[in-house]
């Protein structure tokens, strides 16, 4: 039972983290109609910045804040230099161009930080377990991730649904020509939205950094998951991204934890041992396939395109 609660929390934590990535993707896609494969690179860069700045300043929190700002700036620069020229082009152009960006970012990181991974040590007050229920202890840091990412999700909701910028963002998603015609500086808006997406990705990266190693290519696998989430949730829908992210987080974590045991009940021990790892990493893709077959536009499709 303790294990189950722990795994559920892990699932929630992973899901919320994925939401940060997926929200950026879905915003950028919904508003600029841009497929950004390089989103994972921004995630990686956030983690590298955090590790570096934390080592410089000697403070985890300060390092994280600096990294967040730095990723935001990198995102805005990328938008101004490259992405801006891709709006309105074919999706295949987006895929190719951002694929090129991935190569560029991976190699730049290798050039600057070297091929070996970095680690981001946690401050003592975050690295000890806390008691959340009588007899149940849980990592303080993971708990902190849950709290902080939930706060970011709430902030994002308020930003998009309750502020003027959010109104423009939503308006841009449904009809960008009209928004431009009404005198809104659409270029600046796009740069801001892309920067926001980058910052969210960087934030996800730096939150994940103390748990995993900071290494080249760390963003590539997770960004595919984020894509799966945006597709399941319906491209352009933040609400869809939240629901799908938590769903995927749970399925992935619980699947990996308990699926092998379940299989062992149904199959022989050996067959289960061979099939379990493959099947549990497939679960999410299977889920996506089922969702797309039943609802080809995703669960909460935002646009009527």
């Amino acid at each position, binding site marked *: 039972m303790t294990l189950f609660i722990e795994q559920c929390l892990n699932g929630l934590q992973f899901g919320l983290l994925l939401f940060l990535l997926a929200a950026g993707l879905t915003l950028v896609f919904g508003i600029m109609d841009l497929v950004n494969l390089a989103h994972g690179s921004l995630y990686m860069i956030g983690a590298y910045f955090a590790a570096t700045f934390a080592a410089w300043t000697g403070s985890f929190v300060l390092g994280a804040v600096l990294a967040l700002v730095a990723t935001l700036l990198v995102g805005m620069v990328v938008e101004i230099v490259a992405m801006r020229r891709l709006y309105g082009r074919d999706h295949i*152009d987006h895929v190719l161009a951002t694929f090129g960006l991935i190569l*560029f970012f991976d190699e730049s990181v290798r*050039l600057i930080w070297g091929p070996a991974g970095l680690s981001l040590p946690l401050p003592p007050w975050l690295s000890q377990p806390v008691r959340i229920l009588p007899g149940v202890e849980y990592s303080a840091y993971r708990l902190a991730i849950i709290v902080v990412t939930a706060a970011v999700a709430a902030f994002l909701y308020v930003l998009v649904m309750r502020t003027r910028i959010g109104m423009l963002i939503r308006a841009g998603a449904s009809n960008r020509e009209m928004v431009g015609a009404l005198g809104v500086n659409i270029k600046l808006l796009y740069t801001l939205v892309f920067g926001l997406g980058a910052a969210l990705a960087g934030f996800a990266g730096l939150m994940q950094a103390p748990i995993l190693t900071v290494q080249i290519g760390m963003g590539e696998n997770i960004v595919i998951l984020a894509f799966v989430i945006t597709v399941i949730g319906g491209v352009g829908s933040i609400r869809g991204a939240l629901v799908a992210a938590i769903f995927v987080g749970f399925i992935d974590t619980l699947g990996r934890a308990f699926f092998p045991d379940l299989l062992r009940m149904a199959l022989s021990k050996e067959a289960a041992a061979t099939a379990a790892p493959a099947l549990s990493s497939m679960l999410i893709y299977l889920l996506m*396939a089922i969702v797309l077959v039943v609802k080809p*536009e995703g669960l909460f499709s935002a646009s009527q395109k």
Partner: protein
Amino acid sequence: MSGKISSMLTPRNIAIFVLLAALVLLPVYTGLSGNRFMLTLFTRIVILAMAAVSLNLMLGYGGMMSFGHAAYLGIGGYAVGMLAHEGITSGFVQWPVALAASALFALVIGALSLRTRGVYFIMITLAFAQMAYYICAGIARYGGDDGLTIYKRSEFGGSINLSNKVQFYYICLALLFAAIYLVWRLVNSRFGMVIQGARSNDVRMRAIGFPTYRYKLVCFVIAGTMCGLSGALLANHTDFVSPSIMYWTRSGDLIIMVVLGGMGSLFGPVFGAVALLVFEELLPTLIKLFGTPMFGEQAARASEYWQIVMGPLLLLVVLFARGGIDGLLRKLRKKERV
């Protein structure tokens, strides 16, 4: 008559002729110079060009933006690898199994994916390819993550010996030409017209009365099967197959080849494959060559990081060289007329 010949002598046709002649004569050159590496490199190029040709059939002509095409490379490769691992080395069994497995996979994936369109289609094909990747990475019997070494290449009785490098190269080249011929016949047939019509305007094609879904599915299956064959060749070429053969970046490479060469042009993917892979080989040397006078020792170190040049270069191709190499060759022709 002479007018007809001179009108055929466009820069594009000359380039195609030179490329094909170079590919045919390459083993002669490597035989004379003893440059074995070049033959190995070009065998790889020819095999991947075939995969690119198959992707071009669905992407360039059919407008189906599959981001999981490398899955078929993997399925074809694993069919050969698994059978060889079980002691069945006859190519008469291996290759048909590779083709049938890829066709079946393409049929299932295509039937599901073609229900969606746009970015959803890109993502669902990607997801299915990742699924195939994880399945192969998870099968411990066939090496799992580490891959599977193939100790014996496919055997075709006594007549053909795939271990002979020159013979193997010519077989790959012949199959590449056959694939291009097949695509040429397909796109100029009624079937091909329907596919291209569906690319331009699917709704209208359906309104005229063509069940485009079925046509597209058939196109999807043909492309997948063709790529499966090139997967079987690739496994024979490297004597090894691992899940990384179908990792999503590999699908990206195939898309690069098609777009670089020119989408929807018959020989474009071949140009693209040659350009990309030769460039990948040459770029480190080029950086060293041109960088050393300017930056000295630093350049030699920088040549390790050639992808830092490759990435932005891709971006530039996308931004400024639409239509790829084929498009550039066509433009040359237009300028001449003016």
